[in-house]
């Protein structure tokens, strides 16, 4: 019973944090010249909860925050984009974590890269034109860069707070 309460509280805190970061990111003007290019600050929470609470809880946090922040700051389209990016990146983050080969940097970079891949796939489906993949190379590289940054932040947070902190 107490464990269950603890878990509910922890998920709520993570979801709230993720939404705050989503909001912060939506306030940063789009200075990137390509669609789908974002810092991905929210992934910090997803990565942290993946290490702290495991895949199932991290996945719920991810889904709930995509849905809620889509309703609050976006529209049905942005939910579809985030969902594709969020789910695909999450699958690859679990795979890279499970493999045991990678540190939090590698897991986060895989997340960043596949988030962008997921978004460009939806974009290609929406405009019904595969040639939009001209942006794919740019998005692969920026996904690595932002993923590295988020990996660094996650690493620092994990090191300071530690796993199973809550």
């Amino acid at each position, binding site marked *: 019973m107490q464990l269950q309460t603890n878990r509910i509280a922890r998920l709520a805190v993570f979801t709230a944090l993720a939404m705050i970061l989503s909001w912060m990111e939506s306030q940063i003007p789009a200075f990137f010249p390509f669609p789908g290019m974002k810092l991905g600050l929210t992934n910090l929470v997803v990565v942290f909860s993946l290490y702290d609470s495991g895949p199932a809880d991290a996945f719920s946090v991810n889904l709930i925050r995509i849905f809620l922040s889509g309703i609050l700051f976006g529209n049905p389209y942005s939910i579809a984009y985030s969902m594709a990016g969020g789910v695909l990146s999450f699958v690859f983050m679990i795979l890279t974590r499970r493999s045991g080969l990678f540190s939090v940097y*590698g897991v986060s970079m895989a997340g960043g890269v596949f988030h962008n891949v997921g978004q460009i796939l939806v974009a290609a489906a929406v*405009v019904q034109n595969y040639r939009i993949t001209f942006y794919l190379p740019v998005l692969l590289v920026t996904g*690595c860069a932002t993923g590295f940054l988020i990996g660094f932040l996650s690493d620092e947070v994990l090191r300071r707070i530690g796993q199973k902190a809550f």
Partner: protein
Amino acid sequence: MKKADWLIPAAAVMTAVLWYAFLFINSTDGSEVRVLVDGKEYAVYSLESEVDTVIPGVHGMNNHLVIHDGYADITEAGCPDALCVHQKAISKKGETIVCLPNKVVIEITGGEKGEYDAVAN
């Protein structure tokens, strides 16, 4: 950081380079500018023509298309982010400018009659 972590950026950069190489090898000068709105053909212009026109997108917002000196470009747009305006002018076969909010795609084609045109006709 572990050594294996570098595999991810390495793989991403390699894929990026290979993909660009693939697209570059397949690139030739185009001859026509196709405009798609919501996945359907809206208009076709010759790349040699001088065009200055407004394309209505799906939500009543417009994109301003200019074809000049063999390049097609979007110079103004009603969408909030105007990402299509920042994309550079295009002239090679297969290149595109995309406005996601308006679902407008400008693409350069080789000019030969494809199956899409047959269907549209």
